[in-house]
């Protein structure tokens, strides 16, 4: 929606949004808790409130929306193959395309938990949709694996709806969620957070009957001697998100092995001419506000491309060096930048008392000092266009260094 609005503001006439669900808004519609929009709207909103405000902006324009429509494939020639019950199978040709499919949840298969295959094991986001949109409670006695924000939010949600959450388990020595969520989602309801612990086995024939949990050592391997049984009827997994790039693959778009999303430039152009990507399909974001911001960049890129005002070559590359796990964008063309360039990145591990330096050649052009950098917190830098032009170096290198 943010990309469509940006393209609209840049005088693009024919814009179509294709949505698989019955309404616009995506994952925001099931995130009924508050904490959204502090940057974009300068107030704290719930997910549906945030999406409703953007939908209202869409409705003021002539942007076309096709809901309940599934894109089956994106051809290498930019033909969109889609299907819905009104029009059946369709082929849609577009001058420019913005991909915004979001991400999927990692499942039990992705983390290989032993045991039987009973009913009652859900990805946390799936359970969230069942409770908040469809009105079903997936279980009464719950163990949650993973203490990222989705796991914490679901611990509170299940408790409010009358379930008993036995524990939230975290394999790492710290939670990846916001402290405020530990306070208001766990502490408020006396739900224990058990660190350095994981599920080693799921029990139950037809329905989950319990889980075996165990502490892990420094290599994250379970310590058998610490195994313990917790009875429960439901397991929620909050074990990470992966960008959903099936459609990108079908179009032959180059993917970054670290982000699992397309390799993109400063306006989120992918390796395919005229195809752009934004949001969680590109990199898993922490804040919807930055998703909107990234969507607007892609929308601007698409508009420039259609107006033949887009330079598809690259002038710079970004390199994630020591301690940095990835950087978006991976490539840059300064000619498409107005005055500032924002880099998004994550660190690989926890770094204490460190400084992140952005180098152009051997010159530092930006830096950020922190008591603690966490992998769970996305870090961003604003670089000045002027700094990039006034230097003949073409590699932007980012690394973590100790504070001296």
């Amino acid at each position, binding site marked *: 929606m943010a990309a469509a609005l940006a393209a609209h503001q840049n005088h693009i006439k024919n814009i179509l949004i294709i949505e698989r669900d019955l309404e616009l808004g995506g994952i925001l519609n099931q995130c009924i808790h508050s904490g959204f929009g502090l940057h974009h709207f300068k107030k704290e909103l719930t997910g549906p409130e945030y999406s409703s405000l953007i939908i209202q902006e869409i409705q003021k324009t002539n942007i076309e929306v096709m809901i309940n429509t599934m894109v089956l494939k994106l051809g290498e020639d930019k033909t969109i193959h889609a299907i819905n019950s009104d029009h059946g199978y369709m082929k849609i040709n577009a001058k420019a395309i913005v991909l915004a499919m979001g991400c999927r949840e990692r499942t039990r298969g992705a983390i290989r938990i032993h045991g039987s295959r009973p009913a009652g094991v859900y990805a946390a986001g799936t359970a969230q949709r069942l409770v908040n949109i469809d009105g079903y409670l997936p279980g009464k006695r719950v163990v949650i694996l993973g203490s990222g924000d989705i796991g914490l939010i679901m611990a509170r949600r299940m408790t409010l709806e009358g379930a008993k959450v036995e524990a939230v388990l975290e394999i790492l020595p710290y939670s990846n969620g916001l402290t405020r969520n530990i306070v*208001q989602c766990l502490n408020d309801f006396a739900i224990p957070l058990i660190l350095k612990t994981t599920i080693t086995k799921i029990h139950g024939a037809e329905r989950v009957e319990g889980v075996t949990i165990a502490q892990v050592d420094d290599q994250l391997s379970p310590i058998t001697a610490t195994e313990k049984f917790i009875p429960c009827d439901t397991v929620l997994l909050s074990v990470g998100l992966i960008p959903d790039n099936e459609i990108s693959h079908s179009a032959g778009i180059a993917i970054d092995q670290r982000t699992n999303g397309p390799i993109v430039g400063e306006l989120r152009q992918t390796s395919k001419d005229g195809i752009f990507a934004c949001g969680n399909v590109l990199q898993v974001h922490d804040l919807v506000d930055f998703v909107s911001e990234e969507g607007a960049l892609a929308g601007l890129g698409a508009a420039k491309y259609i107006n033949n005002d887009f330079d598809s070559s690259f002038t710079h590359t970004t390199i994630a060096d020591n301690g940095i796990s990835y950087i978006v964008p991976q490539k840059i063309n300064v000619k498409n930048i107005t005055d500032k360039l924002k880099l998004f990145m994550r660190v690989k591990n926890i770094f204490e008392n460190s400084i992140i330096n952005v180098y152009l050649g051997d010159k530092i052009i930006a830096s950020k000092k922190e008591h603690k950098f966490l992998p769970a917190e996305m870090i961003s830098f604003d670089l000045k266009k002027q700094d990039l032009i006034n230097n003949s170096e073409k590699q932007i290198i980012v690394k973590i260094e100790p504070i001296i």
Partner: protein
Amino acid sequence: MKQTKNITPTNMVCICCPLGCSLTIIKSDNEWLVTGNKCLRGKKYAAEEMTAPKRVVTSTVKIAGGLYPMIPVKTEQPIPKEKIFTIMNILASVRAVAPITMGDIVIKNVADTGVNVVATKTDKGMPF
């Protein structure tokens, strides 16, 4: 300001925004001395948390004729923490009717808190 001795400071995390400042609170005579807050909301929160903690409740209620069976709602203001489950029980017994607009009042003065429960989404009903 004068500080009363032999009272241990309380530590807590402000939950009013995602920054999550670490607050330290000391009782001095009849005032709460708060440090660590990056804004004034943190001071208010700390004092409230020491005396009468409050939370915003976000949940769902059933909706008749809606796009989906549930519509999300929230208390317009924070409500006393001990009333959370009373309010959840009231929400379980309420049924909204489509069409409904974001901000519409679903329950007035819920559980005598003086706070309204409002819809947080617009649902025009089934389009087909």
